[in-house]
């Protein structure tokens, strides 16, 4: 099986045997161990040439030094080796590396915007309060009216008072509220424009699983304006939602704005049923809810929607989660919130470019299906029992296959130039493979750590100082049931004790959490409400295919929300 055609072959040929820009990178084979280093500098890359010109123009205009690629290494610019493009995994999109920095990529920004600006709030408690405390009648008609009012008010419009200023609708057109419910009869009676239709968005089995989980409860999926969220922070999301929800209930149900009973409604409608995307962080990290540090791997898995559209391909589901989570946790959370700069992009891109991780995981799928009687196919009755021997077997096979790829294909080694990149890719492949085969996230996590150990001994190196110290000690907490040491993988997140500064890992962990459920064909990983919140094509970022979206962002084809062009001078 090891002689199969490698999925990364085309990407490696594009990158290392074909000219891109003026890098004169032509000919040779992706298995060559030597290369001609032409030291052409930054001018071989069209994007860097554009950036250098922009930097020079800025410096001239403002009279203050700006970007100048010749500042690098005291006059030795980037590009002493060939500057090469990246293929977005699972696509034919070839992009410049610089365009995968989130600052240069509007799709990446919008993905995080769309998560940060979203929250869920239950309708049932509010309806009970309206009926029992305030004596109001709640019917499908009143709900439809309330939702019309709410979609007027949520973007920042007045609904009760006089003398109010309002936000311009064209600046906040990405803001809206939809509802979903496990009660099919109620869903049928609500105006379709407001409904996330479980029966339409999920297949029959997944829809049944979701409805069994949420019962007949009803929820609002709220997305406040991107521009608001960007100007404030994630913790603002529920506050903005709460103000507009409160005012909309008052208006829609003709209530007194000041009576004490409204306080009961305020609590029940605005706060009691609130579900944020992520938890607030302790003071030492100083972030409120809906910031990436508190986002669990399970929630991240549920935010990505590939599990709905590619159910029969559990590896693809996991790979899309790896991509989205690597971008968010590595490029934005650890790369910017927790540190700053440029380097962290390279940890993430290794996991979602050039099909190297894809190749390893699909190899695992074939291996598992062959050896464990189709255990990597989507299903629940075909899973193999999660034992030490199974983890050992699959993780070892996966890791050695991946290690030998780096040895047989020097171009893949050069592409994943850092050990931390290689370690994450190999461990993610092993972890996702075991998770798909067993349907057990912690078994997948166990495979992750075995992969790290094998990698370190094989190559005599792993990641950088702060990267692999967690991987040296992590095996002991995989199955620990003590609350300060262990937790199901789906409930761990970016602020889990030994993961908190764990660059390069969290996207992979999310992939393993996702694979656990994609292998089973589950509708969701940990929270059906989160899955439903994003089961909605009106979102600017398409959560069904994050990798394509990142590619569109890099190719400058993605149209983000929250732009200010309406209210600034044309340029």
């Amino acid at each position, binding site marked *: 099986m090891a002689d199969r055609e490698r999925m990364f072959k085309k990407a490696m040929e594009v990158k290392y045997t074909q000219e891109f820009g003026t890098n004169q990178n032509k000919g040779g084979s992706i298995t060559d161990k030597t290369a001609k280093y032409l030291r052409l500098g930054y001018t071989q890359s069209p994007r860097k040439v554009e950036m250098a010109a922009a930097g020079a123009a800025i410096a001239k205009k403002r009279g203050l030094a700006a970007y100048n690629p010749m500042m690098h290494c*005291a006059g030795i610019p980037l590009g002493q080796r060939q500057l090469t493009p990246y293929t977005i995994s699972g696509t034919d999109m070839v992009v410049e590396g610089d365009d995968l920095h989130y600052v240069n990529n509007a799709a990446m920004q919008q993905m995080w915007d769309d998560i940060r600006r979203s929250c869920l709030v239950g309708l049932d408690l509010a309806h009970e309060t309206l009926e029992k405390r305030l004596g109001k009648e709640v019917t499908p008609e009143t709900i439809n009216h309330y939702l019309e009012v709410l979609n007027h008010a949520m973007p920042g419009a007045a609904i009760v008072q006089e003398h109010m200023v309002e936000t311009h609708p064209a600046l906040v057109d990405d803001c809206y509220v939809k509802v979903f419910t496990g009660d099919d009869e109620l869903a049928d009676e609500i105006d379709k424009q407001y409904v996330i239709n479980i029966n339409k968005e999920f297949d029959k089995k997944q829809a049944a699983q979701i409805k069994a989980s949420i019962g007949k409860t009803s929820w609002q999926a709220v997305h406040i304006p991107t521009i608001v969220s960007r100007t404030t922070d994630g913790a603002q999301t529920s506050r903005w939602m709460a103000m507009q929800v409160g005012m909309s209930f008052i208006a829609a149900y003709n209530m007194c704005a000041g009576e004490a009973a409204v306080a009961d409604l305020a609590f029940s409608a605005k706060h009691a049923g609130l579900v944020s995307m992520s938890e607030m962080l302790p003071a030492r990290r100083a972030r409120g809810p809906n910031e990436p540090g508190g986002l669990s791997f399970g929630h991240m898995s549920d935010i990505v929607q590939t599990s709905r559209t590619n159910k029969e391909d559990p590896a693809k589901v996991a790979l899309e989660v790896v991509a989205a989570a690597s971008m968010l946790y590595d490029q934005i959370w650890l790369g910017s919130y927790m540190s700053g700069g440029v380097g962290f992009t390279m940890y993430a891109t290794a996991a979602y470019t050039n099909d190297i991780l894809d190749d390893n995981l699909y190899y695992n799928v074939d291996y598992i299906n062959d050896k464990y009687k189709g255990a990597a196919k989507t299903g629940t009755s075909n899973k193999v029992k999660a034992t030490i021997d199974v983890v050992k077997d699959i993780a070892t096979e996966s890791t050695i296959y991946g290690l030998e790829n780096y040895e047989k294909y020097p171009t893949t080694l050069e592409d994943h130039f850092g050990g931390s990149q290689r370690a994450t890719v190999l461990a993610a492949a092993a972890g996702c493979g075991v998770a798909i085969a067993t349907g057990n996230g912690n078994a997948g996590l166990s495979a992750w750590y075995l992969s790290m150990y094998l990698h370190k001994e094989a190559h005599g190196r792993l990641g950088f*100082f702060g990267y692999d110290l967690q991987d040296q000690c992590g095996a002991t907490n995989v199955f620990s049931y003590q609350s300060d040491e262990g937790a199901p993988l789906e409930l761990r997140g970016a602020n889990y004790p030994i993961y908190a500064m764990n660059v390069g890992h969290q996207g992979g962990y999310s992939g393993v959490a996702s694979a656990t459920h994609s292998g089973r064909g589950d509708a969701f990983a940990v929270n059906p409400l989160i899955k439903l919140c994003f089961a909605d094509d009106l979102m600017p970022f398409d959560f069904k295919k994050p990798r394509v979206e990142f590619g569109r962002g890099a190719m400058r084809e993605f149209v983000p929300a929250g732009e200010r062009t309406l209210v600034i001078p044309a340029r």
Partner: protein
Amino acid sequence: MAYKAQYYPGATSVAANRRKHMSGDLEKLREISDEDLTACLGHRAAGSDYPSTHPPLAEMGEPACSVREAVEATPGAKAGDRVRYVQFADSMYNAPATPYFRSYHAAINYRGVDPGTLSGRQVVEARERDMEEVAKEQLETEMTCPGLSGLRGCTVHGHSCRLQEDGVMFDMLDRRRLVNGTIIQDKDQVGVPIDRKVDLGKPMSEAEAAKRTTFYRVDNVAFKDDKEVVEWVHRVWELRTRYGFQPKN
């Protein structure tokens, strides 16, 4: 019978080389003069005194302390040297050393060292004269091939890159290069030009590098073929995993 350290499992040449690096039982292959070493390290001018951060310990009137009595200070600590570093990058194309085994070598065989292990480089920090002792041994022995390894304080990129057409590991800062069959270095660890051309010796042939390497490669000694090492890794992983579970508690 006195205990004899085993250092590392495995029945292959790679495992045997790892045991040599760890034990310090190394073959000397070349001579690097003290002045050349000092120039390449770039911490002080060749031939100058060691700068110090404190007076010699003997002059400091240290307090009574059982630890101080039990552990003799290293020469560099006694003299009050600064803590400085030596950092190597080693190619994944059969360079003799790998980062972890450079670290094990330093930690097992020297006192007062602080090894740091990354994927593309390995640093040892110590009092300056103590560090130089480690650096000299690593440079002069079979731990280092001047073509496949390099002294690199920054911009270390190269360990995973394809080799240059002349078989030398890529160095963005071009600190050293192959000249008439030998490796000549004319910049220090961080790429600042030095006042001499230091001859680091001949690069190993492909066959010699393959024989001396501590790196498992499928085209030389495949990791999976060293059954004892793989079994040992499995055992370490399984015991740590089971220890964390501890259901009886």
